[in-house]
């Protein structure tokens, strides 16, 4: 007596070890399958990881000179950068002498924005874009303050003039 076991529904099997197809179609299909099976490492996740790494390095550097950022300030800095549009560059990070976390988007002699993040909800900022210096304070409670969003858009507007690094 022979027994055959059939699945209730058709299943797809991908066994690259036995894949010997060499046609162009096979090559393309193999590439597509490989891409589909690759873990979805989004650019947002990579960006967040890169920022966290820089944050840790900045905190360690500050600690070496006796300055300590509070966990709250580090957390708020991370929250702010995470809330930004993913196409914006990750800022340079410095821990200031007062323990606040400084975030610098420094793209040229007259293309710079710095934001300082402390324990509270108030952020301080200063920018020089073109010939216009601006500075002030904004509140951050989770969403990117409109003023900062505006300044970042100006800083990274397509075709912005400014000296290269």
């Amino acid at each position: 007596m022979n027994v055959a076991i059939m699945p209730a529904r058709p299943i797809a099997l991908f066994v690259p070890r036995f894949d010997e197809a060499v046609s162009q179609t096979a090559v393309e299909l193999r590439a597509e399958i490989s891409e589909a099976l690759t873990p979805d490492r989004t650019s947002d996740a990579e960006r967040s990881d890169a920022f966290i790494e820089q944050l840790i390095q900045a905190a360690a550097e500050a600690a070496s000179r006796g300055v300590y950022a509070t966990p709250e300030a580090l957390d708020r800095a991370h929250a702010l950068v995470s809330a930004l549009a993913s196409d914006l560059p990750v800022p340079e990070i410095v821990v200031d002498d007062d323990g606040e976390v400084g975030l610098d988007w420094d793209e040229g002699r007259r293309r710079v924005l710095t934001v300082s993040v402390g324990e509270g909800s108030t952020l301080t900022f200063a920018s020089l874009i073109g010939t216009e210096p601006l500075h002030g304070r904004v509140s951050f409670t989770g969403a990117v303050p409109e003023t900062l969003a505006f300044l970042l858009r100006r800083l990274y507007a397509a075709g912005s003039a400014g000296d290269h690094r």
Partner: protein
Amino acid sequence: MQPDQPAITADPVRPDERISRFVLDRGHFTTERVKFRAFLPPHNNTPDGLVLSVGRTRDLNEAEVWAWGDEHVANLGGRTVFARGDFTLELIQEVAANGVILGIVPDEPPPRHANITGWPPFARKEVRASLAQQLAAKAQLVRR
């Protein structure tokens, strides 16, 4: 080696004389410019308030300028001078934020030492940052 420098008394800073801010941090300059953080005053809180230390380097040749920086800036903290930002009192006085205009006051010894004064107090961090950004925009980078 002590450079042979012409004597300079603590006379008031002339509007057009060269003033140099020495850069000790590699991250504070690029190939083209000095970044604004090189111009932020540390939390030193002297009797004159917050001050930014600079050198009056007029009449010094390049070797003498670097020697001054090595002796009176870098050696104090066991660090290295990598570059400097040069400007004048005239340029500094073009910088303003919140009604604040900076000045330069001789502060000797050591000879040729001066301070940029007039910075807003600790609580006005954003104003200090704005002034530093404007200073950086006006400074001329000189790399060693």
